[in-house]
């Protein structure tokens, strides 16, 4: 048996309990929501904890309120399966729901929460290994080592942002609510992420993510395309979240975010700007897809070869935009969570 290390467990019943426990020992305390990221990380000794604060029994953190016309609020403890089973989210924010449908596997989605997904640890082929393996290379900078094995000589860690819902929610301009003993603040979700594989969130360790807020859906179209080796279980090797609005045939707003190509969800701003004021023709889409490759700077620390992953950024942005434009797919369409969407109706 691969056992968890020992720690003090605090089963919080109120948000107050949880923020107080965090404030007592911010460096030694970790939160647990569904545990599908925290427990594997503790078992493999990637992370340690003097105490763990369980959010499962905190009242008011689970649930979906509002409607797409006015905007929707999702509690951080809402499970990924809860999201898939919510018809109004499917109607109003299809890109986000598709991203959730493509996360891990059905059993894991019954456990994993949206808050946990957004705060998910970054990943790297030199890090997500068992302890003996990591010890044999003297660990790396993300732990107690001093070298980054992906880019030796680099002063920083390049572990990749691995949450599927993050790029989708960035493209939809969602906001997150953070709570601490100091009070509450609301920030755009893109600002939650930091350009660093180790300190990958900007929130302080005393803050708890309590809510995810989506603005009115309006006439926005959205989608999410995910590249991975198998049709289930695997983390993204590339995630493309796109949201756009058309006004009389021309694009009036566009957002494209790329996941798993950097330590944070990367905005493909030039590609999105290229679409503005234009009709979504095959040529315009192909040009935007080419532009989207620039900000993606993946390193060789996930599944698949680096060169191919770079090429796929263009193909996936092209495919996602073609889908939103109603154009036929260029190749046999890949599947991005359709199985889960059909199962969980």
């Amino acid at each position, binding site marked *: 048996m*691969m056992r968890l290390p*020992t720690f003090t*467990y605090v089963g919080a019943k109120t948000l107050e309990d949880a923020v107080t426990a965090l404030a007592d020992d911010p460096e030694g305390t970790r939160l647990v929501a569904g*545990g599908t990221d925290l427990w594997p990380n503790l078992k493999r000794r990637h992370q340690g904890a003097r105490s763990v604060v369980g959010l499962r029994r905190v009242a008011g953190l689970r649930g979906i309120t509002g409607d797409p016309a006015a905007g929707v609020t999702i509690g951080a403890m809402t499970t990924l399966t809860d999201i898939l089973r919510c018809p109004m989210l499917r109607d109003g924010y299809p890109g986000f729901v598709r991203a959730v449908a493509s996360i891990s596997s059905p059993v894991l989605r*019954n456990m994993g929460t949206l808050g946990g997904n957004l705060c998910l640890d970054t990943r790297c082929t030199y890090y997500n290994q068992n302890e003996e393996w990591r010890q044999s290379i003297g660990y790396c900078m993300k732990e107690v080592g001093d070298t980054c094995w992906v880019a030796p000589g680099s002063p920083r860690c390049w572990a990749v942002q691995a949450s599927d819902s993050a790029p989708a929610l960035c493209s939809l301009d969602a906001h997150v609510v953070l709570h601490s003993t100091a009070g509450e603040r609301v920030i755009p979700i893109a600002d939650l992420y930091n350009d660093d594989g180790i300190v990958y969130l900007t929130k302080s360790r005393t803050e708890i993510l309590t809510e995810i807020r989506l603005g009115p859906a309006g006439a926005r179209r959205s989608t999410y395309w995910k590249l991975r080796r198998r049709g289930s279980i695997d983390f993204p090797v590339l995630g493309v979240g796109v949201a756009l609005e058309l006004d009389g045939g021309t694009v009036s707003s566009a957002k494209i975010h790329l996941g798993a190509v950097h330590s944070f969800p990367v905005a493909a701003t030039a590609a999105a700007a290229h679409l503005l004021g234009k009709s979504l023709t095959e040529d315009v889409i192909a040009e935007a897809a080419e532009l989207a490759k620039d900000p993606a700077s993946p390193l060789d620390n996930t599944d698949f070869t680096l060169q191919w992953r770079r090429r796929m950024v263009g193909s996936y942005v092209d495919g996602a935009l073609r889908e939103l434009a109603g154009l036929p797919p260029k190749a046999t369409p890949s*599947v991005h969570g359709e*199985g889960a969407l059909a199962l969980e109706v």
Partner: protein
Amino acid sequence: MSEHVTATYRVNSEGRTIAHPAHHTLLEVLREACGLTGTKHGCELGECGTCTVLIDGEPQLSCLVLAREVEGAAIDTVEGLEGRDLHPLQKTFADLGAAQCGYCTPGILMAAKALIERKPTPTRADVCEALSGNLCRCTGYIKIIEAVEWAAALCRGESGARPADASLYGVCKEKPHG
């Protein structure tokens, strides 16, 4: 010695009060404290699905649940599947040879039970998706999928003809994942 907790669990509708190390997962408590070794330990990291049990009716991975967090919840394991007779899933898995080494079977049976209860008439794509977090290294999945479909038919009260032998060794016609 590590800190122990005493907690009451509802396993297969039976209350069990158990003292166990406070940091143990539900998998450890089921196997080591309750002696219910039907639930298997595989990767222990969420990747294989063999430790799947039902928690309040939903399939979850017992290796990634801190036991004390599910005190009071309804926990169903493979040992509770059989009533007076074998559960239809047990019958069809046995009749179709849907298990070879059998290590993944307890997890698959529990995931399939939840599927049939939620969707009595699952499509083949539904079966593939519902089992897509449960790995099997022996069977190639076809017999497993057919056994679940056959069991669903039996649960619906249909006469439930055994799937044609030809399809047992055929290919999955509806491709689940692109």
